[in-house]
């Protein structure tokens, strides 16, 4: 359990706060929605409602992370967000294809949803067109992924943030700041076993001390790629959920997990870990948790 010398930034988006010294704010969890197949809106609505209730119970902020995999899904998913997500609540959009990213941004701007949008993500694959569209359709917050295919260590991750590692013309942080995105979350880019998977966790305190920015990752991706766990289905599920505690334990601010169906396991687990961190952080570093922190909500 850590405390940082560097001043830690705290960002707020539509009522959800993220960042700061470990033990002050609860770890934020992002849960993936519409990850596979055709979007099932009824199912998603049911899950999101359940998860928001669990989140309210523990104090662990939950942000739905909407995968948009095809152009034809953009409109229906944005309509779903408008109808189902509470009006002053944030959400993130998780898109791989640059052309779908661009079109989604334009739609979100038309619907005046950008102030609640977390853009997932800016990375070394950012295109000129994407940058141009982001300039005029700027989301309130963005996740910047520190993926460096050449150097997967914490140093390599810092290199892409700082200089772009010759993969982009500028460092990814500079690109984001030049777009007037001031609320930046750093994603330490969890990679498969064999690809220095542990670096995503080790990089959390390194990056927080370097930049003071809220930092986290999707560590469950490492579990998904641990094929040997397929021989142990119960353990695989347990490890998938439990992997997330690495993030608050190493001082991180948010965990991206998936799919949303796991929220009933992930959120109490994260809340439990937050309590553990908070007790130590308050005792040794004098960090008082905010009123919404699981330690204050659940331990009475």
């Amino acid at each position, binding site marked *: *359990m850590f405390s940082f010398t560097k001043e830690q930034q705290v960002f707020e988006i539509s009522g959800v706060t993220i960042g700061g010294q470990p033990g002050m704010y609860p770890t934020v969890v992002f849960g993936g929605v519409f990850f596979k197949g055709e979007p099932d809106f009824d199912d998603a609505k049911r899950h999101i409602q359940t998860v928001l209730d669990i989140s309210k119970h523990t104090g662990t902020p939950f942000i739905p992370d909407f995968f948009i995999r*095809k152009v034809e899904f953009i409109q229906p998913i944005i309509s779903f967000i408008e109808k189902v997500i509470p009006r002053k609540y944030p959400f993130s959009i998780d898109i791989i294809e640059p052309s779908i990213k661009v079109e989604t941004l334009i739609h979100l701007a038309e619907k005046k949803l950008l102030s609640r949008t977390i853009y997932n993500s800016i990375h070394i694959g950012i295109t000129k067109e994407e940058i141009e569209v982001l300039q005029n359709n700027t989301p309130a917050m963005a996740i910047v992924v520190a993926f460096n295919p*050449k150097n997967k260590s914490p140093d390599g991750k810092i290199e892409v943030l700082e200089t772009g590692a010759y993969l982009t013309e500028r460092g990814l942080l500079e690109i984001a700041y030049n777009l007037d995105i001031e609320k930046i979350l750093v994603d330490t880019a969890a990679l*498969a076993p064999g690809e220095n998977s542990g670096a995503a966790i080790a990089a959390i305190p390194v990056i927080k001390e370097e930049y003071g920015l809220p930092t986290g990752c999707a560590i469950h991706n490492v579990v998904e790629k641990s094929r040997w766990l397929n021989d142990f289905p119960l353990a695989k599920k347990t490890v998938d959920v439990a992997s997330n505690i690495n993030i608050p334990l190493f001082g991180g601010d948010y965990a991206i997990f998936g799919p949303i169906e796991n929220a009933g396991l992930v959120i109490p687990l994260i809340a439990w870990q937050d309590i553990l961190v908070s007790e130590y952080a308050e005792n040794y570093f004098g960090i008082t948790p905010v009123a919404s922190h699981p330690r204050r909500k659940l331990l009475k």
Partner: protein
Amino acid sequence: MAEDYYPWGGEFTACSPKGSVGVVLLNIQYTPPQSVAIYGRLKTENIGIEKIVANTISNPNIRFLVICGDDIRGHRSGSSLLALHKNGIDSNHRIIGAPGAIPYIENLEEEAIKRFQKQITIVDLMGEKEKIDSIIADLTNGAPSSYGESYIAIRIKPKMTVSLTDKRALHSKIVISYLGKVKKRGV
């Protein structure tokens, strides 16, 4: 045996070491016949492709790479692999003409890519559903002999770049006190 021929770990199955065909599976539920040398799934347009190249040139018996299934959305890994074979990489290590989001080859030397281009004929069966088995059988039966040059086995060894005197430190950039206070090293 698999480890000798295919030094890069990944999601693959090694079958017949003398087989001339490797099969890349994209979005498809299909199990190739045991006569192929190796088959496996390709997901990403960077590390995934690097592994395919490394594991292909490590076995000179492999002369064909069959790509089958629908391409991976966003990553466009199948099309990016085709682009690498056709065009190679530019000075920034980006695959020339690749449509994927992050098509960078960072862990292979130019020599390895050139060898891949020369040793392998790509058979693009993306979108094809009916004829995969028969095409693989034809390729296997009419296969040319081994590439004729010895294999190239590339192993990535983790680099030890720093010697830490402070055993509590997690990384060379930071120092962590026994209580858990983090500060930048040397400040």
